[in-house]
């Protein structure tokens, strides 16, 4: 038993180290600093590339997203884990996907970028981790009290192939008709590693994440629920790898201020990540895990990813996303944060997650009673 656990843990740790190295490599090759591999940011950039929002600085067809989906898809096919299934509260999942994205963009990153930012010394991300853990704790509170979005059922092959097919279609679109795709000329969207290298790295990450079940939310959740540290080892492995890499490259900066594409509006960082932790626990995994499961043929996770992309579009179309701290031409430091509309959106998202949590528990308790 101990040997089996050690083997399982080793795979998660290796996956965490590879994700950390991939993030450092892609940052070195051009991706924005402390954003080597952010699922929320990259889905947001894809939403922009497809003209779903018009924020000119965050538009690029990030191949990392397609690579993760297809890496997970290929390894799942090879190991016979590809199983089309769907039907577990798809509309609720779509809404939760959008809500998680709105929370993530208030903070400016998904749980994976939070971990990457922590590894770069970003104190804002360390504080946001408190909100994230609180959110995961609240989510597990509801899971223990019977939160249930009902089971999924075996689905058609078409349903299972839908997300991998969308990923292939986006790659084909990007290669054959780049004029259709919007690409930022300044800002984070203009910073990117070479397309093919990013795609290949993401294929490896997707395959490893599928095999190891790596999940940022699962790491904290399983410790709270079962005292199971397996997935948390991956979480820690990413941080350790990135801290070491950043120290070697001279990019480690322990500070709240002047962090790359980050704001120091602490309350909203904490609340944003609380939504992400809470919503992701209800969804069964973090944004990275949703991509991997969608690649395995899970239609419910595919619809969650689509919800996240729409959430990203809403965040930018309505100006709810976080604005990074900046420095004026006169050298004055300006704290960013989110607009009043963004604050209202965050509060509404908290209310939505709470309502979904309570109502899905009530149904269960009535049936049992």
């Amino acid at each position: 038993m101990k040997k089996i656990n050690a083997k399982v843990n080793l795979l998660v740790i290796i996956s965490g180290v590879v994700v950390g190295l991939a993030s450092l490599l892609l940052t070195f090759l051009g991706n924005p600093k402390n954003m080597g591999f952010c699922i929320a940011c990259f889905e947001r950039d894809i939403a922009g590339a497809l003209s779903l929002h018009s924020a000119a600085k965050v538009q690029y067809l990030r191949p990392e997203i397609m690579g993760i989906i297809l890496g997970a898809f290929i390894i799942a096919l090879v190991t016979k884990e590809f199983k089309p299934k769907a039907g577990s509260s798809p509309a609720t999942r779509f809404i939760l996907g959008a809500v998680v994205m709105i929370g993530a963009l208030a903070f400016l990153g998904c749980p994976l970028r939070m971990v990457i930012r922590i590894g770069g010394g970003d104190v804002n991300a360390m504080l946001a981790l408190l909100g994230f853990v609180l959110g995961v704790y609240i989510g597990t509170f509801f899971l223990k009290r019977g939160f249930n979005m009902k089971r999924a059922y075996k689905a058609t092959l078409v349903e299972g192939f839908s997300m991998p097919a969308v990923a292939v279609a986006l790659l084909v679109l990007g290669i054959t008709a780049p004029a259709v795709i919007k690409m930022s000329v300044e800002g984070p969207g203009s910073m990117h590693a070479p397309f093919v290298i990013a795609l290949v790295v993401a294929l490896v990450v997707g395959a490893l994440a599928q095999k190891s079940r790596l999940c940022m939310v699962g790491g904290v959740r399983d410790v709270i629920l079962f005292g199971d540290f397996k997935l948390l080892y991956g979480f820690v492995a990413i941080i350790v790898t990135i801290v070491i890499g950043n120290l070697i490259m001279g990019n480690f900066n322990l500070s709240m201020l002047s962090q790359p594409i980050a704001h120091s509006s602490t309350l909203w960082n904490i609340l944003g990540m609380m939504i992400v932790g809470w919503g992701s626990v209800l969804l069964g995994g973090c944004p990275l895990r949703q991509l991997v499961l969608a690649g395995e043929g899970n239609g419910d996770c595919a619809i969650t990813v689509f919800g996240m992309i729409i959430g990203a579009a809403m965040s930018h179309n309505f100006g709810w996303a976080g604005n990074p701290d900046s420095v004026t031409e006169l050298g004055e430091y300006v704290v960013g944060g989110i607009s009043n509309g963004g604050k209202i959106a965050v509060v509404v998202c908290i209310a939505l997650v709470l309502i979904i949590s309570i109502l899905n528990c009530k149904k269960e308790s009535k049936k049992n009673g």
Partner: protein
Amino acid sequence: MVDARGYLCPMPVIMVQKEVKENAPATLEVLVDDECAKENVTRFGKSQGYNVAVEDTDDGFKLTFTK
């Protein structure tokens, strides 16, 4: 019998945990339909002192817990 087919992790483990906590059965059959649930439920069963036998079924796996 716990039928956890169609549920994403961690739901299968939560369902089994609830059954074990409330009824402490000497034997328990659990149905799951994916590899991840099989691994996690097996690990949970062993952590609770059960022997866990895994059998392939038409749409997944049957896990049998015995003390």
